[in-house]
């Protein structure tokens, strides 16, 4: 019963996440940027643009330049999240890739950094007048959701262990449409339910900033407007 329910929920959530994000990304892809609007100074080569976006995605360069507090909390959170997600891959693999093994010990403790980063970001929403002013209920709930996912996960890693072997069999089973029993631990059920919720709201929320940044014209355009003519299809129609 529980196994079947969560199997269905996971398939549904994965479909919503993948299809939802894909649809939005395709929409961004297809919508033209009719004018050259890179925030200058901008790279003059294509590799320079890749490097610029790389710095934004990996180091949060613009944020670093702007505000060290927001930067330290959000960078800490995102990098820790990356390690934690990488560590979770092992639950979907019969035998984990070697780098997933390497990440394992770091990922376990990255959970603390992730929670600390989230707490810092949430604290700012209360303590800094300007950020309090711009925060909507969903901004708070999003942080609460992530914190709850992190806290329930950390509880299982550090305090009340769940039957991890059975969980792994459940997860790897899902990959090949085999339904192995899911341990009925309350904390695990909470953790998985919240993750499913996160997957479902991802495509319709501000979490789309993750794929979105790659499409941002101010960051992904090259400084070559005088050397190469950019023209959107709808704008070219005006010249006929």
């Amino acid at each position, binding site marked *: 019963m529980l196994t079947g329910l969560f199997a269905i929920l996971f398939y549904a959530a994965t479909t919503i996440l993948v299809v939802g994000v894909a649809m939005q990304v395709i929409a961004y892809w297809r919508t033209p940027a009719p004018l050259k609007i890179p925030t*200058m100074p901008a790279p003059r080569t294509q590799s320079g643009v890749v490097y610029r976006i790389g710095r934004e995605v990996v180091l949060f360069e613009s944020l670093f330049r702007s505000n060290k507090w*927001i930067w330290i909390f959000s960078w800490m959170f995102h990098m820790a999240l990356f390690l934690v997600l990488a560590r979770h891959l092992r639950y979907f693999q019969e035998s984990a890739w070697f780098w997933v093994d390497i990440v394992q010990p770091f990922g376990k403790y990255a959970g603390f950094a992730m929670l600390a980063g989230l707490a810092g970001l949430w604290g700012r929403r209360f303590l800094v007048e300007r950020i309090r*002013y*711009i925060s909507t209920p969903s901004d708070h709930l999003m942080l609460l959701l992530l914190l709850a996912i992190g806290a329930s996960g950390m509880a299982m890693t550090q305090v009340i262990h769940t039957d991890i072997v059975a969980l792994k069999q459940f997860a790897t089973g899902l990959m090949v449409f085999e339904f192995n029993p899911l341990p009925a631990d309350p904390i695990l059920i909470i953790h998985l339910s919240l993750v499913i919720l996160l997957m479902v709201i991802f495509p319709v929320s501000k979490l789309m*900033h993750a794929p*979105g940044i790659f499409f*941002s014209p101010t960051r992904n355009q090259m*400084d070559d407007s005088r050397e*190469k003519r950019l023209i959107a299809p709808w704008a070219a129609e005006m010249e006929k």
Partner: protein
Amino acid sequence: MAKVKIDKPELTEYLQIPQLQEGAMAHSSPFVAKPDHQEALNFPGELVEDWHDQAIAKMGELSRTSRSFSLFLDICVHCGSCTDKCHYFLGTSDPKNMPVARQELLRSVYRRHFTFAGKYFPNLVGAKELTRETLDEWHSYFHQCSECRRCSVFCPYGIDTAEITMAARDILDAVGYGQKYDNEILGKVMKIGNNLGLPGPALIATLEDLEEDLEDETGLPVRMPLDEKGADVLLITPSADFFAEPHIDGLMGYAKVFHQAGISWTMSSYASEGANFGMFIGNYPTMKKVAERIRTAALELGVKRVIVGECGHAWRVAYSFWNTLAGVGHGAAEDDKYAQMLQKQLDPRYPAPQHIIEFTYDLMQRNALKLDKSANDHHTVTFHDSCNVARGTGMGGIERGQFILPRAVIKNVVNNYVEMDTSTMFEETFCCGGGGGLLTDDLMELRVKGAMPRMHALKKVFDEEGVDTLAAICAICKSQFSKVLPYYDMPMDMITSVHQLVGDALVFENND
């Protein structure tokens, strides 16, 4: 004009992030465009009956035609990075002048109509219905943004509030609720050829006067040619250069440089305007129409090069958009007949368009100008990076050229140069407070307050380093500074065109 009474912000020792004062600038809203201003640009004359549906329809159109519109409205996470970056926020304390809060005025309506979350959970994500009050709020706060793009430098996703402001103004125009200053001026360009509405004969008379002045000064027949077919260079400059101080001294500076370089050049009475307020109102067809005047003039006069005078947003439109809007540039596809028509005519050895600073810099590099720096020894000069030049353009074909070249030109003609606090310069430069189509008397309070961060940095070098000259390469900056400097106890005439400094340092044979 007399100083309007405005309580200007105090200049504190360090630039401070103000406490929020809600509604502090809610009263600031520019005059609404009159029906004839609107209709000249094919916008409805006054607020249409079904403004709600038309505004939403326009938003739908924008999200299909411009990726930045929907992307920037979708992906903001309210991190707060931009909240202390806007000069209007720093100068007015009004929270709606924080870039993200300004965007939110439009985003809340976009969410309500175009996103799943906003349709079904409006309260959760701050989605709101478009009301008549919202529309008024748009007219107010989207005319408290100078589209300077400073916030976009600091946004982790590169969200550019200028794009949102332009979109909002485009929507306002589409429902018949435009801004008087911008739309009236655009009407003049379309009808007469320049923002001032200066007709051909008046232009000829002005240029003749200037030629006389130049001859008196240099003893040489330095020319100000107009509509001369077969000239190598077409100079496109903001029309303020024809009449306003200190702009006009910059124009005379260009003429001296052209004269000494021995390059044949001309201006155009048909395209006697570098400015393109079409960008300010975010309307592509209008911007294209204004830009096409330059294309037409270049084709008719048969010039090989197009050079742009000292004007910030004009240079952004020229550098970044002219190739797209009117084919003034290089590198169009072989089968792109529209662009190729002009591009075949332009000399491929020179960038198109080229900035007058690039032109002068190039001559200096080749030692083609005879200069005497000491002519400017009575000045201690600082340079203001204009927002559109700094964050919207390049120069010299090198990264950061827009910062390097103007300084190199200035340092070639001036001995005493001082840099302002570098955290207020280069790509982090503060707007003068009058850009983006706000250079109008009905927004004087906003302009004075918005100038505060720049004035703060300037006052430091004014007091401590003896700076008495503020050089700039933007017509709006020049006009704005001469208006607001007195509010901050600095002389209005300290603002100077870079090419005035160049012109003063040029040595002419007959000059003693």
